[in-house]
C-alpha cells in the first residue's frame, strides 16, 4: 500500500501531464474546445427542464425562485455526472490501456488516478458553468458551498472504489462491461436527480436507504438549491461505504494485477 503511494508520487509528473494531454487532445481540432464538456450536461438539464418543469415544479416546496426545478436538476446532475463518469471510465480502463500495460512497465495505479483527475477537472468546469447559470437565474452563491469539497471527495471515493472493482472484474469477465451501463441507467432513475424525492410513494421510499448516492445527491440539493448545511449523518454512511469500496477495490487491484496482463 505504502509502495503504491510511493510510486504514485514518483510518477506525479506523468499523472499531471496525462491529464493535461487528455484534455488538450480531446479538443485539439474543435472550435469550442473545452466548452463541449459543459454543453453536454447543460443541454440535458435544459431538455429535462423544458419537458418536466410544469409537471414537477409544484412539487418542490420551499423555494421561491421560479426556475427552482432547473436549479434542482443542475445540482443533482453535478453530483451524478461525476459519479457516472468515473465508474464508466474505470470500467473499461484496463481493457483500453491493455496494450500499454503489456508493453511498458509503470505503476498501474496511475491509470485510475489519471481518470479521477481528469473527471475532477471536467466536474470543476461544469461547476463553474452551473454557478454562472445560477447567477443568471438569480441564485446567489453561498458559504455553504464549501461543503461541496468533502462531498466531491466522497463521490470520488465511492465511484473509484466501485469502478476499480468493476474494472478489474471486467478484464476477466467481459459481461461486466455490458451489464454495468444498464445498471447505471437504472440507478440514475432510482436516484432523485430528475424528480424530487417527495413524489416517490411512501412504501417504496425505503429503496433510498440502500442507495449510497441518495444522501450525496440530497446533500448537493441542500447546499446548492436550499443553501443549507447538508445532513451529515446520512452522508456519513455513504462515506463509510465509499471507504469500504475503495479498500476492497485496491485489494482486488493488487491481487489481480499479476494476472491482469496475462488475460489482456
Amino acid at each position, binding site marked *: 500500500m505504502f509502495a503504491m503511494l510511493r510510486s504514485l508520487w514518483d510518477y506525479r509528473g*506523468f499523472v499531471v501531464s496525462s491529464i493535461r494531454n487528455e484534455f488538450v487532445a480531446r479538443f485539439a481540432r474543435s472550435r469550442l474546445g473545452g466548452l463541449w464538456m459543459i454543453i453536454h450536461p447543460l443541454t440535458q438539464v435544459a431538455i429535462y427542464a423544458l419537458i418536466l418543469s410544469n409537471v414537477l415544479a409544484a412539487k418542490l416546496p420551499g423555494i421561491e425562485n421560479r426556475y427552482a426545478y432547473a436549479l434542482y436538476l443542475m445540482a443533482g446532475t453535478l453530483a451524478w455526472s461525476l459519479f457516472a463518469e468515473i465508474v464508466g471510465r474505470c470500467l473499461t480502463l484496463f481493457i483500453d490501456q491493455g496494450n500499454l500495460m503489456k508493453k*511498458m512497465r509503470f505503476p498501474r495505479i496511475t491509470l485510475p488516478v489519471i481518470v479521477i483527475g481528469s473527471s475532477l477537472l471536467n466536474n470543476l468546469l461544469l461547476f463553474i458553468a452551473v454557478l454562472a447559470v445560477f447567477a443568471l437565474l438569480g441564485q446567489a452563491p453561498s458559504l455553504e458551498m464549501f461543503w461541496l469539497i468533502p462531498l466531491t471527495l466522497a463521490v470520488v471515493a465511492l465511484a473509484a472504489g466501485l469502478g476499480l472493482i468493476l474494472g478489474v472484474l471486467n478484464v476477466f469477465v467481459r459481461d461486466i462491461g455490458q451489464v454495468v451501463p444498464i445498471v447505471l441507467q437504472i440507478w440514475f432513475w432510482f436516484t432523485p436527480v430528475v424528480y424530487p424525492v417527495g413524489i416517490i410513494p411512501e412504501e417504496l421510499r425505503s429503496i433510498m436507504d440502500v442507495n449510497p448516492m441518495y444522501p450525496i445527491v440530497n446533500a448537493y440539493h441542500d447546499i446548492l438549491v436550499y443553501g443549507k448545511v447538508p445532513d451529515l449523518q446520512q452522508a456519513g454512511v455513504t462515506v463509510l461505504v465509499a471507504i469500504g469500496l475503495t479498500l476492497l477495490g485496491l485489494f482486488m487491484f493488487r491481487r489481480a494485477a499479476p494476472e491482469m496482463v496475462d488475460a489482456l
Partner: protein
Amino acid sequence: MTLLNVDNLGKAYRIYGSEWQRIANWFYLPAKPREEHWVLKHISFSIQAGEAIGIVGQNGAGKSTLLKMITGTLQPTEGRVQVNGRIAAILELGMGFNPELTGRQNVYHSAGLMGFNAEQIEQAMAEIEAFAEIGEYFDEPVRTYSSGMQMRVAFSVATAFRPEILIVDEALSVGDAYFQHKSFDRIREFQKQGTTLLIVSHDRGAIQTLCNRAILLERGTVIKDGNPEEVMDFYNAIIAEKENAKVEVRQLDDGSVQTRSGTGEASIESVGLYNAEGLPIEFVSVGEPVSLRIVVRISSDIPELVIGYMIKDRLGQPVFGTNTHHLGCKLETLRAGEALEYRFGFPANLGVGSYSVAVALHTADSHISCNYEWCDLALVFNVVNVSKEAFVGLAWIPPTVECRR
C-alpha cells in the same frame, strides 16, 4: 558486476473452470486451476555489465515472454528476476504516442511513462530534439508525421537516458538508412559505457556482429548458452531437424564445436580442399585455384539429392554459399550404397584469415524441406597472402588504377 540475475524463472498461464474461481482465488478461497500451461520453465542465467547477449529461438519458444518478465510487465509464476539498474526497451517504439499532440508533448509524456520527472525531461529535451533531426516538425502534431519521423522521435526518447540494460528488438529498422546507422552508433556507444545489450533476433549476422554471448530458447527452456557462433549453428541445426533427425555436437581438436544434424539417408563421408596439383592443402594463397572435394554416401534410396556448401569467415558470417540446385547439377533417384564424389573448383579470391566450410545434403533449393545431413565446420582452412599486393577485407577484388593530374 551482475546486472541481471534470472533465477529459476517460470511462467504459467492458469486456466480456470470459471473466471469466478480465479476471483475467489484472490480472496484466498481454495480454487484449483483446471489447467496450467507453462510457457517458460527453469530459466536461470545472469548477465554482467557490458555484455551483449543475443536471445534466439523459434517463434513460440518463449522469447517475448522472457523479455516481458525481465522488463517487469509480466509477473513470473515462479522464480525471480533481479535487476540492478534501469531497463529500457526498444521493442514498441512510439507506444502511447498521441497523434493530436506535438512531438515535444509526446516526448514529455513518454519520458514520464519511463519514470522521469519534469526536470530531468527538461534537461534532456534539447538533446532529444537534436538527435531526432526532424526540424520544425518537432512542434507539430504527430499525426502530420511520416512513420519514419515518428520512429525517429520515439527512438530518441527511448534512448535519451543511458539505461543499464537495453533490450533491442530484431526489427530495429528505425526509419531510413542514415538514422539506422545513427541509432546503431548510439547503441554501441552505450555498450562502451557499460550498458548491457539484450538483442532478440533471428538474424545470424546481427547476433554474431553485436553479441558476445547467445542464449537459445526452445519450448520454454534454455537449451544452449554460450558463444554466438556455436549457439547459432545449433539453432540452424534445430530448424533443419524438423522430424526424427538427430543433432550431434562434437568438440573439435582446436576447441571449437561442430554441429551435425539430419535424417541420415545420405551422409558426408569426407570434405577436403585440394590445390591444382591435386594435393590436399590447409593453407591457401590468395587467388589460388582450389577444388573442394566432398564424398557422399547414400544409405537408403532417395528420390533427389542436392549438395550445398557455405564458406564462412572466422566470425561465422557467410562469405559465399551455393548448391547444386542453383548450379544445375541436381541428382535424381539414388540407390542405397552409392558413393558420390563432388568437386567444386573455384579461385580462392578471399582475404587473409581463417575460414570454415559448412556442407549440407538436402532436396530442393534449401535445407528446410528435407535435410539429410548438415555439417558445420566440416573443414577449416587459412588464406595467406604470398604473392599479391597488400590489402584488407574478406574478398580479393583486384583493381586496376589510373590517375589523371
